[in-house]
């Protein structure tokens, strides 16, 4: 399956899921609607159906070869599995970030998130800058937002245990 066809299929699948599954299940209609006003599901259903039509058109054009030129994606020459692994790594780190915030607090979680992100870019030089960015950056931002705007960041169970 070529990329334009796959794109069209994904578009149709997504909007069809919305129109025929999500809208009926997650857009409740109130028992009484005044006058001739359209119900709450009218607009999301209409947009979803238009999306299905657009997706079908995208498939049709892809099969006829009438799709726009795909922009060349610049890479470092890594293989597709390698890139998929990196992407999965990003998702895992994002999920881990939310999992650890209640335990270690917002500050420490963002420190490790930033460090992980810098290291995942492949950067290994500028070690002092990496340390300053990962550990100094979140501290400065917490101080700024806390003192300037009064923002209270989640402290986490572990931090509370140590009396912070």
């Amino acid at each position, binding site marked *: 399956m070529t*990329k334009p066809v796959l*794109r069209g299929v994904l*578009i149709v699948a997504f*909007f069809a899921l*919305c129109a025929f599954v999500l809208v009926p299940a*997650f*857009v*409740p209609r*109130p028992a009484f*609607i005044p006058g*001739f*006003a359209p119900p*709450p*599901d009218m*607009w*999301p259903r209409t*947009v*979803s159906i*238009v*999306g299905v039509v*657009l*997706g079908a*058109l*995208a498939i049709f*054009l892809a099969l006829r070869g009438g799709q*726009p*030129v*795909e*922009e060349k*994606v610049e*890479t*470092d020459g*890594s293989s597709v599995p390698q*890139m998929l692994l*990196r*992407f999965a790594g*990003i998702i895992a780190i*994002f999920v881990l*970030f*939310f999992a650890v*915030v209640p335990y270690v607090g*917002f500050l420490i979680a*963002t420190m490790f*998130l*930033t460090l992980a*992100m*810098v290291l*995942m*870019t*492949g*950067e290994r030089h*500028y070690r002092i*800058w990496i340390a300053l*960015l*990962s550990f100094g950056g979140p501290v400065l*931002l917490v101080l700024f*937002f806390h003192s300037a705007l009064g*923002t209270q*960041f*989640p402290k986490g169970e572990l931090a509370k245990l140590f009396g912070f």
Partner: protein
Amino acid sequence: MLAEILSALVAVATFQNLLIMAAGIWGGVIVGAIPGMTGTMAVTLALPFTFYMDPVPSILLLVALYKGSTYGGSVSAILIKTPGTASAACTALDGYPLAKQGKAGKALNMALYSSVIGDFLSNLSLIFFAAPLAALALHIGPPEFFMLMLFALTTVAGVSGSSLLLGMVAAALGLLLATVGEDMYGSFRFAFMPDMQAGLSIAPVLIGLFALPELIKLIVMRAAKTEEAAALGAQHVTRAEFMGSLRSILKGSVIGSILGAIPGIGPSSAAFFSYGEAQRSSKNGANFGKGELEGIAASESANNGACGATMIPLLALGVPGDVITGVMLGAFMIQGLTPGPLLFQTNMHEIYMLLIGMLVSSVLLFFAGKITMRMFSKVAHIPQTLLTPLVLLLCIFGIYSIASSTFDVAVLLVMGVVGFGMFLLNIPAAPFLIAFILGPMIEENLRRALAISRGDPAVLLSSPITWVFAALIVFVVSLTIRREITKHKERRVEQ
């Protein structure tokens, strides 16, 4: 009226407001000068800070960032042949050859002068045309507004990305996402979890969509560019050089002002159009692309000339012309102001303050550009591998501070992944964002129009104004399809 203008002038001319505008311009110039960082990012990153400011200073900050970043884009375009913003792409064509000839300072100065003149003239057009347009808009009702917004959405979908079809798909995605939350009858739509009952906030969606995909791209594809910046060299633009480019500067300013006022066109298209026109009409046309100052003048006057003009449809009709004014629409709403004709009746003082502030910011742009010019070659050297994680850090803290909500941070990260997916599928992000912002208004006006007409969809074509917008939609769609067919044929011939 004169008393109101004087009162607004006094209100704007405070140290705090001048400082905010100067900081915005300076920050915007730096952000625009960094490859990979855009004016949209600068404006969206500043959005959380505006929550704690008064309405007018907050909008002036965003406008200053917009103007600064549009000029700043020319810096990396000239010094390292990497446009900081898309609208500076034409500037690189002549700016970099000039830098290689040791005339980077001259090129930067010409870019600055052209940007300031374009910006100033564009602000004047805003002052003269926004109010009459708003007065006209008072006579239009829900069907007309629905058609107008549909036109804006079609235009944005048509000029963003490589395909009208994919632009429309992006718009449909944005419209659908905008339906999440409570509707006008108290029905909770797509509220998969309690946090979603209030809907998705604009800030995390747009920051996630524009700022985070850059980081994900960098990690997954690792294709960072590291070109060396050129030395500044000869600094001054001579009187003869300036006068030789003046015609292109004025023409570019007018082109920018006209194209900027049309929703969906924006600074990039204006710059390309103006560059093409200058090349066609200049006696130095053959030198364009080889280091011609007039090329820089044409491009920069048009892209900055579009900045003020994009505020015309925003202020007068409540329709954002591009992504950045889309963000500003969000900022207006956050501040409790609804752009559109009524704003000119209920908040005239704020409007005058905004217009005067924009004129002042044109002058500040000149000084900010002059002062920071030497520093630029160092800023452009910041490695992407440190810069993009820093952006993530700023985004996370900024978004959390808006509502002290980890859900908003989750929305930010999820939208980053969505933005990356859209990049992979070649689906443009701009129509998505504009549709997400306009979505509630489009739906409300459609539902009101249908309620008024007792459910008759013919109401959408019931007045001359709706017919005009319908005709414009057909025109834009036909023009875009024709352009795409021509490109397709050219590709086939090349193959």
